[in-house]
């Protein structure tokens, strides 16, 4: 079993839900990323989604776009991001790392090169926002050759027939986009999420994570009742953005702990690891 599956199995045994924070690699400067990843794990992250900066992040809102721009000021490229994962692995061999980003940096490196290098650096899963299943049969093959999970998005606009098709290709976990919009938006409709997840479960056996629009303990808690994992991105990046450099780690750690506690509360487990 790979790390992602192992993580979800272990959580299930403890009746807990996964907390998946997202940060952009190289934000706000490259030396911050590995310490931040370690802090996130310490504060209760089960899986880390590490964003690959891109000049044109079409599916993201202003917060994540700004984080990309800060990283790009330091010319953080895909190779640098992979090196950060390798560095992180020196002290953490258990926490799954999922790279998340856009197609063009992968295309520039070459799909096969990318998969080989990702394996070398011990990446567990990859989600490329603008590689929908229709366009990436060869891509999934490359990833699987190197035992890396191809993670896919589903959204409120995905019709049932397509859910079934995507479910056949999806590995690791499904990332369900909770709203029609970009990352960082704030109009999460819980009853709609609940309806969609019920539908999704009839097609999908792997865990389902929900992201977009989760901004505090209350929404994290409510989502964790419905889903297997809660993904938080923009809110963490806001914390990085507004904290003085010396306080970033502590502030992000505290934020994540509060989310962890909120999620665990709803499942009768008070521990915060």
């Amino acid at each position, binding site marked *: 079993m790979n790390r992602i599956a192992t993580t979800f199995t272990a959580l299930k045994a403890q009746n807990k839900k996964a907390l998946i924070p997202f940060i952009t690699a190289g934000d706000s400067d490259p030396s911050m990323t590995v310490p931040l990843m370690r802090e996130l794990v310490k504060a209760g992250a089960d899986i880390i989604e590490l964003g690959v*900066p*891109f*000049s*044109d*992040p*079409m*599916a993201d*809102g*202003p917060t994540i*776009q700004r984080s990309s*721009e800060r990283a*790009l000021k330091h*010319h953080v*490229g*895909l*190779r640098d991001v992979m090196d950060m994962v390798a560095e992180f692995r020196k002290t953490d061999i258990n926490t799954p790392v999922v790279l998340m980003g*856009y*197609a*063009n*940096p*992968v*295309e*520039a*490196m070459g799909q096969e090169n990318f998969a080989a290098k990702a394996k070398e650096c011990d990446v567990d899963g990859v989600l490329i*926002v*603008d*590689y*929908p299943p*229709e*366009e990436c049969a060869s891509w999934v093959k490359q990833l699987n050759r190197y035992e890396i999970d191809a993670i*896919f*998005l*589903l*959204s*409120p*606009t*995905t*019709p049932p027939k*397509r859910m079934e098709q*995507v479910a056949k290709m999806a590995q690791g976990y499904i990332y369900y*986009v909770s709203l*029609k*919009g*970009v990352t960082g*938006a704030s109009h999460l409709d819980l009853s709609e999420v609940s309806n969609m997840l019920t539908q999704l479960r009839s097609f999908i056996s792997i865990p389902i994570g929900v992201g977009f629009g989760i901004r505090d303990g209350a929404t994290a808690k409510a989502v964790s009742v419905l889903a297997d994992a809660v993904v938080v991105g923009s809110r963490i990046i806001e914390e990085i953005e507004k904290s003085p450099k010396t306080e970033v780690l502590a502030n992000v750690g505290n934020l994540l702990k509060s989310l962890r506690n909120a999620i665990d509360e709803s499942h009768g487990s008070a521990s915060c690891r």
Partner: protein
Amino acid sequence: MKAYDLPDKQGHFGPYGGVFVAETLISALDDLRVQYERYQNDEKFQAEFADELNHYVGRPSPIYHARRWSAHLGGAQILLKREDLNHTGAHKVNNTVGQALLARRMGKSRIIAETGAGQHGVASATVAARYGMECVVYMGAEDVKRQATNVYRMKLLGATVVPVESGSRTLKDALNEAMRDWVTNVENTFYIIGTVAGPHPYPMMVRDFQTVIGNEAKKQMQDEYGRQPDALIACVGGGSNAIGLFYPYINDENVRMIGVEAAGKGIETDQHAATLMKGRPGVLHGNRTYLIQDENGQIIETHSVSAGLDYPGVGPEHAWLKDIGRASYAAVTDDEALDAFHTLCRYEGIMPALESSHALAYAARHAQTLDKDKLLLVNLSGRGDKDMATVAEMSGIKL
């Protein structure tokens, strides 16, 4: 040779094109594709489109023989397809009329558009007013400053212009922002893309609406000259005016097709927008195509004196036509384009858009190498009134 029949069902032109978007947009694009396939061959829709082009846009646009300029150059005869005479002053409106009619059929009450120089924004605002729809235009904050007159034109037509402050604050960022709006408001909103780029079905659909240019030209050439031109020449940013002229000729192997990109300050510098000549294939804005990018796959800012050519990508069909050798692509610098702008003003009394001036500059260069009985058909894609401030500034004149 097998007749050209691209794109395939999934919108691919060889390895290019396709649908590279986030999941949230897939169903909207599917819906658009299904609806467009339905109306593509629907007689009533096509009749209404043709009627609007004739009575609202003012088509057909003539082919004009630039005799005095041709004589001055001393080579091939240069013919101009006068898209500059269309309502709103450019070829852009052919496409916005088509897409607005489709939006109405699909029951969408709101249209959005991205714009660089403002020509597509104006053409979108125009049809929104014509059909009584709400219109929001995304425009890079830099471009809003550079194109104040067009911003005001759009506002006069009732559109809301949203300055985009993210990224390089130019056309590509306006496109990103329009996509984000579409993702958020997909139920009541139709996104009118202005060029033959973006995810399928846009490159095909915009091409189809623009082929009125080439279809008319083919008939006019036969009627008025008794033969087809030796070469077609058009400028290429995204490439919609070029594909509109080229496409009906694609199976006529003896008609050369030449696309002219913006070499800016020179293709040997990093200040150009010659995507096909200097870029590498990649994925941006929903399709696979040539892109101007760095070694990490980040998109690089481009430069051209002409805002309409200042784009780091290019329509996927041009990428394919280049690879298979059916079309060839050249580049013309800011200075050469400006020179052609002035020459056409003085020799023919026609003020061309700076975009079109790139095609004219190449045509002038090429004509001089050919005999006098050769015919070059240049797409004069727009008029140059919008560029007067830029030209004056470049000539050191204060208006």
